[in-house]
């Protein structure tokens, strides 16, 4: 028997790590991975709540979050490839103009 709060704390720690990575990282791909980490932290709390309230809806929501994450990864990585092709860099400090 594991208290629900333990799962929520773990999920919060993972989410905080994701936010930190989003802030301190300078590589655009690593920033993208931090977003995935945040989504994973939220998924864990969904599943924990689903088990706590004896309902399966939370697990279905996790399924939808995964679908959205997959779509986001596909589009985001395509954008990264496009940015790299035009600017030849992955450092976001050098990507500071919408215009070429």
């Amino acid at each position, binding site marked *: 028997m*594991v208290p629900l709060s333990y799962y929520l704390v773990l999920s919060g720690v993972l989410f905080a790590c994701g936010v930190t990575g989003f*802030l301190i990282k300078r590589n655009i791909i690593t920033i993208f991975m931090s977003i995935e980490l945040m989504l994973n932290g939220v*998924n864990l709390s969904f599943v924990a709540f*689903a*088990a706590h309230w004896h309902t399966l809806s939370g697990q279905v929501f996790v399924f939808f979050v995964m679908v959205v994450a997959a779509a986001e*990864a596909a589009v985001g990585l395509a954008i990264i490839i496009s940015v790299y092709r035009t600017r030849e860099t992955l450092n976001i400090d050098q990507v500071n103009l919408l215009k070429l």
Partner: protein
Amino acid sequence: MSVHLILFLVFGAIAVAGAVNLLVQRHPINSALSLIAVMAALAGEYLLLGAEFVAAVQVIVYAGAIMVLFVFVIMLLNAGEEERTDGSRVALLFGLPGMLLGSLLIAWVVLKHSGTGSVAAGVWAASTGPARSVPGSPETIGPLLFHEFLLPFEITSILILIAIMGAVVLASKPAVAGGGPPRKVKD
């Protein structure tokens, strides 16, 4: 300490270590591999919570498909080590204390305001009789997904379609100025 708690702590430690390693590593491929470790550990947590289907999907879709896409792009773009700039030093100065503060705040709020409720996998399966399958298996998720959540499911399929088209348009080579050689029209 029950077995559940020990397994929770082991998987949780792996997940947090992977997440911190993602922040510390400077090469993107190392970050990607530690993120895969986080996802595998989270799949273990899902199994502990009785969510078998979600655990399998986590490994197959997240740790498999999405992370392969990431690693593929890292290798395609030949991403090297991250460059440190003045901006990243400021962010490091404020980001790490911010993470600690955020984690502590969340932990404090959750631990202080949570009741005595605990999560036990598979309790309610026993209470409703042995005929019912284990919660979180495809047999129980499937009807829910295709009856109650049919509209969101269809909407996600449209979302995926749009994402595929967007990815193809964005990642394809930009058209040559002037439109390239004129196309021949066949009769």
